[in-house]
């Protein structure tokens, strides 16, 4: 069964567009009483869309024929008919430049992502994100902004000790209690973020060092400084030179995240794996 697709008049058919799928539930508040309103109230991650559009505007300003832009598509899981119309109308009301709307059932959403060359799926729901990652779809957490204030930079953060570890070392992780399945997942997560990193890297290069509407960030949580250095070099090799880098070496991650306030958080999940053996008790 094909998902229902609505194309808006602004669909861009572009090979190198950064197709980013976002869940409706994150952009609009679809909780119980909120759906009475039209337009729908803004959701937890609404400011993300504004930040993305600001980047696109700057890209086009530099080069009006720019094809490497964010192309946002909206994904709705199990939405009732009248909600679908409200979503469509609300997007128009807020002036959101959304190319496509996909409405599907819960069970189909991963397949929907896979079928549509999505370069990145974003959601505030951790389970959705890991579900997508496990199916090989590049996915990252969409972060709730503290104040809903519009930041003047779109911040993309890679929390990636895995990026700083070689394939051989990841294999060795079985000696530290990780299962073969978990190791496979690590490798899959690392593999599928590469393309997104390369695209973001290329997009970042369109702007200068200062005054960029796009900021890229690397954090390593558990690894030593050498793991962080390797991660920096690996990202560089993939085409991404990050603006900011943090090596926590076991320090808690949340206070740093609260200060950074990223919009997009790609997390390799290494430091919060459940069911690992006792010696790996580091909290994030």
């Amino acid at each position, binding site marked *: 069964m094909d998902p229902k697709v609505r194309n808006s008049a602004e669909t861009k058919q572009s090979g190198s567009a950064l197709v980013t799928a976002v869940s409706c539930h994150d952009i609009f508040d679809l909780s119980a009483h909120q759906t009475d309103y039209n337009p729908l109230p803004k959701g937890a991650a609404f400011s993300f869309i504004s930040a993305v559009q600001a980047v696109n505007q700057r890209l086009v300003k530099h080069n009006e024929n720019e094809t490497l832009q964010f192309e946002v598509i909206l994904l709705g899981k199990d939405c009732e008919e009248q909600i679908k119309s409200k979503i469509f109308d609300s997007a128009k009301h807020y002036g959101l430049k959304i190319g496509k709307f996909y409405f599907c059932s819960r069970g189909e959403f991963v397949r929907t992502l896979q079928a549509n060359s999505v370069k990145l799926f974003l959601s505030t729901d951790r389970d959705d994100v890991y579900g997508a990652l496990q199916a090989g779809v590049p996915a990252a957490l969409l972060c709730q902004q503290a104040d809903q204030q519009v930041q003047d930079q779109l911040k993309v953060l890679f929390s990636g000790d895995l990026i700083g570890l070689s394939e051989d070392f990841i294999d060795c992780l079985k000696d530290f209690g990780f299962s073969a399945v978990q190791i496979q997942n690590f490798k899959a997560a690392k593999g599928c973020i590469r393309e997104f990193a390369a695209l973001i890297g290329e997009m970042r290069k369109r702007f200068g060092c200062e005054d960029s509407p796009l900021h890229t960030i690397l954090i390593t949580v558990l690894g*030593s400084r050498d793991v962080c250095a390797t991660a920096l070099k690996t990202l560089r090799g993939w085409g991404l030179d*990050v603006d*900011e880098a943090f090596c926590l070496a*076991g320090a808690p991650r949340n206070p740093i995240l609260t200060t950074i306030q990223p919009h997009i958080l790609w997390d390799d999940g290494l430091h919060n*794996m459940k069911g690992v053996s006792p010696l790996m008790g580091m909290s994030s």
Partner: protein
Amino acid sequence: MNLNHQHTTSKGDTYCLEAMKTREHSTPTKKPTSPKPENAITIAVSSRVLFNMDLEQQIFEQKGMEEYLKYQIDHETELFKPGPAFPFIKALEAVNAQLRDLYPESEELFDVVLMTNNHAHVGIRLINSINHYKLFIERFCMTGGNSPIGYLKAYHTNLYLSADSVKVREAIEEGIAAATMFSSEKVTQVSETQLRVAFDGDAVLFSDESERIYKTQGLDKFFEHEKAHENKPLDHGPLKGFLEVLGKLQRKFYAKGHRMDCPIRTYLVTARSAASSGSRALKTLRAWGLETDEALFLAGAPKGPMLAKIKPHIFFDDQMFHIEGAAELGTVAAHVPYGIAQKLPPKKTKDAKETDSPPK
């Protein structure tokens, strides 16, 4: 899981996961764990005080950011030379080694964090240099131009050292002990086993309340005021907390019998005079439950020669006049931009031995 740290084999050997990386290492390498920020005494240093980046700074100022970053990347494998905070950092590590010997389970150690405004492009060059000098700096924040204040707080920073006085001022306003450091031509050799920290009194350990009186009402009024309030403790200044944590560590050494040869030594170097105004300073410290190993009351004499004898790894003062005087004779001096001295022009006297010379 702790990727860089201890894993115990069945034989009881410990080795770090990092060593596992190449699988070629049959001998275990021991790398100490970084303490949790809430337990540690966190010292945040900027890249320009850890290493000498004068040339690169010049390129940035004259040719702009793009050229600066390009230069850094082109010279990525070239080592930086040590900067003004380098000997201080090395001394912190020496203290840590001794603390670990005496208290192997404790996390009350110095933790040095690299806190730089620099772009992550410079990261690899910085890490290469840190590796070369075998510095124990595992944590860093390269903020790519954003303010470090939020990160300083996230790390429960006890002391922030930077070459940028604007950021230092911001940190002080947020209640974080901080000081500006400068490159210097002449630097004397300092101890590699005993950490020595010297503090000015007013507007560093103490508030600037008394200094205000001197600056606005003159020396006589200052003496009068100090005498009248001799038994009233002064309010605290920005570096009081740092002296406090040093004292805490010193007591750990005393508890294990290392009173005479304690690897940490503190000094009060004040222009107050022993005969009069100095009394209030000592009583204040006592009221706080703090002490310094030595208290030097210079009664207005220049601080440079005394500091040259003490050879501290770092000397904190709120007046540039004293910072410069110290640096001229080879002492690493850090400026605390706090209090009234920052707002009024400095009062310099030629002959500081006269009785009507300024208290600082």
